[in-house]
């Protein structure tokens, strides 16, 4: 990648090495969920761009440095907000389900796949 060395002197612009653009699997999952929901007609792409832009603006107003590293945090927050607005699910339902996953993970011995319902088996 040309210009890479020159960019090292500019810590304010984070970058990758032409390589993976997701820094964690959940980011790729969140990305794919938005694309898939759009494909299913749950929202239009302009609606999505607006929701994401609004989420980023909200985060910046709340002090997020917006360096790009928290980008998928905003992506997921925008997605959660938009599916609730569309009546697909609700904030409460998402919260309950998240707690269920947390309990399932904690009930799963290390090295075994984590699946929902695991916490009810013991």
């Amino acid at each position: 990648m040309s210009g890479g060395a020159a960019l090292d002197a500019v810590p304010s612009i984070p970058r990758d090495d032409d390589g993976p653009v997701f820094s964690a699997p959940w980011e790729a999952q969140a990305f794919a969920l938005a694309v898939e929901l759009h494909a299913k007609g749950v929202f239009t792409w302009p609606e999505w761009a607006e929701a994401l832009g609004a989420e980023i603006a909200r985060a910046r107003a709340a002090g997020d440095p917006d360096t790009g590293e928290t980008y998928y945090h905003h992506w997921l927050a925008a997605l959660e907000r938009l599916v609730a607005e569309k009546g697909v699910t609700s904030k409460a339902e998402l919260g309950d389900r998240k707690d269920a996953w947390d309990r399932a993970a904690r009930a799963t011995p290390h090295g075994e796949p984590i699946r929902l319902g695991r916490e009810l088996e013991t």
Partner: protein
Amino acid sequence: MAHDGHHDDGGSALDEMTLRVRALESLLVEKGYVDPPALDLLIETYEKKVGPRNGARVVARAWSDPDYKARLLADGTAAIAELGYSGRQGEHIKVVENTGQTHNMVVCTLCSCYPWPVLGLPPVWYKSAPYRSRAVADPRGVLAEFGVTLPPETAVRVWDSTAEMRYLVLPLRPAGTEGWDEDRLADLVTRDSMIGTGLALAPAEVEAGA
């Protein structure tokens, strides 16, 4: 698997963001909004199959075939679809050509709209606030940080992407590549050269790296 616990309860723990994504995904699957195999395929596509190589094929074809180049500049979406690349968001892709007079550079000041079908997912810096604001206010300064210095007579034009319109830069064909076939040409086309924060590689740069 004997994995003696650094988790005090002996179980596993998922981080906050993973829990949130799993919560959302499992609910969407149950409600029939997403299909897990389709989702996995999508992730694989975006992670591996789609990438800047698609854009490089488009550029190499335009450098080699004047008729294709004319179609590409007239209707980017259709000409890119000729090579089998098309987006899922229904966005239009406009191709902007670099010349001796004009250097083009792409940004999305609102969020990070990006021509995914040809470039894959955007790099981290493309999504950063400093790039988004400075690309417009001080494009030459940003280019200098990327190691790109343009002749003073070359104007810099910045294109701001939207949900409906994405941009792909057609970089200048490097000197010394007369008679090269498309495969060799495509190796000269970097992702950054198609965003406009870089130039296509010179033949010597590829040989040095090989």
